[in-house]
Structure formats: C-alpha cells, structure tokens
C-alpha cells in the first residue's frame, strides 16, 4: 500500500462518532503530513516508492489514530456527546417525517404538521426551562 486509505479513514471516524468538522480538518492535515514525509524522503534521494512506503510507516496505522480520536469525548459530534437528547428528539423528528409520507388531504396534513411542530416546540421549550432550573439550582 503506497498511500493510506484516507477515504476509508474518514468513514471510520464518522462511524466512531467524531464530529464532521474535526474529521474534515484532521484528514486534510494527515494528507498534508503524509505528502510532507514523502517529499522529505524524496529530497534525501530515496526513490518515490520507497519514500511513500516509509511515509506510511512513519505516519502510523490509521486505525490507531481513529482509536485515539474516538476515545476523546471532546472530538465527538453533538449527538454523540448528548445521546439522551438525541434519543428524545429522534422519535419526534421521525414522527414528523413519517407524517409527510402519509397521503392526507391538505387540511389534515396542515393540522398534522402544526401539531408535530407544536409538540417539538413544547419539548424544546420544556428542555430549555429544565436546563435553566438546573443551572439556577446548581448555582
């Protein structure tokens, strides 16, 4: 293997719950780092294939980098850091999505959308009040 599989690495990071912004920048930094290593080895007179092989080994196993990133909670996406919130919100969002798929007459559809919207806003407002209450209680 002469170039690490950065595309597969990106998918693995995403599956590990790492946030999209972190993935984007980290992969681009790793690609640059790999290119710098190859360039440095070529500059020392090694042939391109040998340079690429050395660069791959110096960069380290991508699976190891993924494991380190996945262990750091601050690198996870919002939903992976707050699974409870995601768990509460996803049924509501799924219900709203399902309603759109059902064939309804326009009046019922509007009413259903309005109801779903009202429920979601209610839940969001309640969550905000609760977090405020917690913040006040905790001083």
């Amino acid at each position, binding site marked *: 293997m002469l170039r690490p599989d950065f595309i597969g690495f990106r998918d693995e990071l995403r599956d590990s719950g790492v946030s999209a912004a972190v993935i984007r920048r980290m992969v681009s*930094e790793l690609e*640059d780092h790999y290119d710098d290593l190859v360039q440095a080895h070529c500059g020392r007179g090694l042939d391109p294939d040998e340079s690429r092989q050395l660069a791959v080994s110096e960069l380290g196993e991508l699976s*190891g980098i993924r494991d380190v*990133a996945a262990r*750091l909670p601050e690198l996870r996406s919002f939903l992976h850091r707050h699974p409870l919130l995601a768990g509460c919100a996803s049924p509501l969002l799924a219900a709203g999505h399902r309603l759109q798929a059902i064939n309804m007459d326009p009046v019922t559809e509007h009413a259903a959308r309005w109801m779903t919207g009202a429920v979601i806003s209610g839940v969001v407002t309640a969550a905000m009040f609760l977090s405020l209450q917690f913040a006040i209680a905790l001083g």
Partner: protein
Amino acid sequence: MARSNPPFMSGVPELLLLRLLAQREMYGYELVRSVRVATRESIALGEGVIYPVLHSLEKSGSLSASRKSVGGRSRVYYALTRRGQARLEELQGEWQRIQDGVRSALEEPLHAAT
C-alpha cells in the same frame, strides 16, 4: 492526603506539544520534527497520533488553530493560549513531582522486604 498520580504516560504528548508551542506557533509536521529533536529521538510517536491530541487541546481551549498559506500550501498552525500556558505549568509541576519521586526511589539503597 496524598495526591493521586495523573495518567502521566498518556499526558506526555500533551506536555511536549504544549512545551514546544510555548516557544512559537507550529503546524503538525513541524511539531513532530521538533518533538524528535527536543527529545533526542528518545520518544517515537506514531506521527499521525498527534492530530487527535492537537484537536483535543484546541477544543479544551489550550490551543488556537489558524489556517495560513505558506509556500503555496495551506497549513494549520497551532498556538498556545493563556489557558494552554496554565495547563502547561500544571503539567510541568505534575511531571516534576513524578520525576522527583522516581529519582528519590532510584537513589535509595535497596532494602529487602521485611
């Protein structure tokens, strides 16, 4: 009460990166080279592993990152923040304490367990 030891071995890359970035801002590849020189090649990290650590330090506010174009290539430069400086002092203190403890243990004459 005795203070518990921090996970110092896992904190080594963090300490080294903060220490080097206290001198000047650097990008990843440059940092790895500097770690090698500063540790006289005695610490060999898988080079790519520094990126999750750098991102984590940035998220915790110890580092700031900015993209700069150098020699026609775009680089992400990391710089130490005020919070990073405080974290560096804290880690240096912990490291010093551990180093003193280990040195003291090594300098003590060996006693058979009684």
